[in-house]
C-alpha cells in the first residue's frame, strides 16, 4: 500500500505492507534510529513516538495507519540540531545512562505535559509508568521532567514539543 506521511517535518512517500509496524518503518526504512522497538507488545515504552502531536506506541500501530498524518520522533521535537531542553535536563539530573529508554520517555512525558502542564511528582510518576528504565532508577527522570514543567509554565522554556522555535 502506498502511504504518505510527514516524519520529523519531512514528507515521506513509501510503499509498505500492511503488516509493517510504524516503529519498524521509522527505524529501518526512514533511518529514525532513536525509535527502539523492544518488547513489541506495548509495555516497555521504548518505541513511543508522536502521531499528530500525541504519544503512541509505535509497535502497536501499523505504518498504514499513519497515512496523511504527522509523526515526530525525538529528532523532530528538537530544532537546529540541538537537543530538546528536557533532554538536557535529563542528562544533568542523572536521568540518562544508556539512553535506550530516553527517546520514548521524553516523548511520552512531553505528550503528557500537553494535557497536564503542572504535574505533581505523583503525576509525573504516572506519566512515565509505561516506560521501563533499567539504568537510572527513575528519580533523575522525574526530577528532569518536573524541572522542565516548572520552567515551561513560567515561559522560560525555549521550545515547545511541536518542533522548532
Amino acid at each position, binding site marked *: *500500500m502506498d502511504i504518505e506521511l510527514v516524519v520529523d517535518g519531512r514528507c515521506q512517500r513509501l510503499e509498505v*505492507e*500492511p*503488516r509493517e*509496524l510504524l516503529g*519498524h518503518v521509522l527505524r529501518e526504512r526512514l533511518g529514525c534510529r532513536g525509535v527502539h*522497538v523492544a518488547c*513489541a*507488545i*506495548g509495555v516497555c*515504552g521504548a518505541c*513511543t513516538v508522536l502521531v499528530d502531536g*500525541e*504519544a*503512541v*506506541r509505535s*509497535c*502497536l*500501530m*501499523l505504518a*498504514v*495507519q499513519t497515512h496523511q498524518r504527522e509523526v515526530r520522533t525525538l529528532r523532530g521535537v528538537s530544532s537546529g540540531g540541538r537537543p530538546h531542553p528536557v533532554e538536557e535536563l535529563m542528562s544533568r539530573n542523572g536521568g540518562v545512562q544508556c539512553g535506550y529508554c530516553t527517546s520514548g520517555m521524553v516523548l*511520552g512525558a512531553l*505528550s*503528557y505535559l500537553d*494535557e497536564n502542564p503542572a504535574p505533581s511528582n505523583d503525576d509525573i510518576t*504516572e*506519566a*512515565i*509508568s*509505561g*516506560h521501563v528504565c533499567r539504568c537510572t532508577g527513575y528519580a533523575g527522570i522525574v526530577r528532569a521532567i518536573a524541572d522542565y514543567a516548572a520552567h515551561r509554565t513560567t515561559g522560560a522554556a525555549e521550545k515547545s514539543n511541536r518542533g522548532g522555535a
Partner: protein
Amino acid sequence: MLRPAAFEYEAPTRLDEALELLEARENAVALAGGQSLMPAINARAVRPDLVVDIMRIASMHGLRVANGRLQLGALTVHRVLVTDPRVRHAAPLLAQAASLIGDPTVRRRGTLGGSLAHNGFGAELPVACLALGAAIDVHSVTGDRVTPAVRFFDGGHTVLAPASLVTAIDVPVAGPAEGSAVREYSGQRHGVNVVAAARVWRTPAGRCGDVRLALGGAHAPVSLDKLAAEHLIGVLVDDVRSVEAAVVRLSRAVEAELLPFRTRHEDLSGAAAGRSIAAACGDVARRRLGKLHGH
C-alpha cells in the same frame, strides 16, 4: 524480535461496510485502538488474513447522557472515560476503572469496546461493566442485539460471535444515594492483577440498601452481587467499624467462593473485594456530605 505475519488491511468508514468485510472473510479481525490486539498480532498469537481497522467509523464514537442512561460509543478511548466530565459525573465507576488501565499513552488509543471484546485477564472495564449492569450493544450483518454484561462475559471469553462488533455500551446514571469504588492490586506472584468494582446504595436511614460487586484478574470477571448483599445489606454505611466488620466477613467469603479458581499462588481477590466495598461506602458518605455542603 516480534513481527506480524502478512495480512490485508481495510479501513472502512461505515459500520455496515465493516460488518460485511468481517463476514466475508473467515479469518478477519477488527482492529480498534490496537492496545490488546496488536500485541497478539505481533507475537503471532493471532494470525488474521484481514485486519479491518474500525477506528474511522464515526457512529461508534461519541457519548451522551439521555433518559437516565450514559450511552457510549464502543470506540470511546479510555482517556475520555477518565477525563470527560459527563462520564465522571454519570458513571464515576467507569472513570475510576479506566484510570487504572495501562499508562497515559495506552489510554489515548485503547477503547472501551476493544477492552470488553478482548476480555483479557486483569482487565478493569469488564469488571466495571459487570458492577454497573451495563447493556452491551452488538452488531453483525444479521442485525443487532443488546446483551447485559453478566451474559456477555463467559469465563475468559465473551459471547461475541465471529464477524460481530461491540458498537455501544449503556450504563445507568449514578444517583445521589450511590457510592462506588474500584480497587486494584498487582504484584501477585503469577503477575496478574486483581481488580474489584463496587457500588453501594445508602437508604435515608443510613443503611446499605443495595450493593453490586464484581471481581476480575486472577480469574475471569465474575459478579458477586449475591454474596455482597448477604454481608452488606442493612449495615450502617456511615459507621466505619460496622462496615469494616462486614467487609472482613465478606473478604473471607469471597476467598472461599473463589477457592476453585485459585492456584497455589497467593490471591488478593478477597482483599480487593473488601477494600472496594469499604471505599464505596466511604464514597457514599463523601457524596452525602458534598450534597449537605451544597457541592
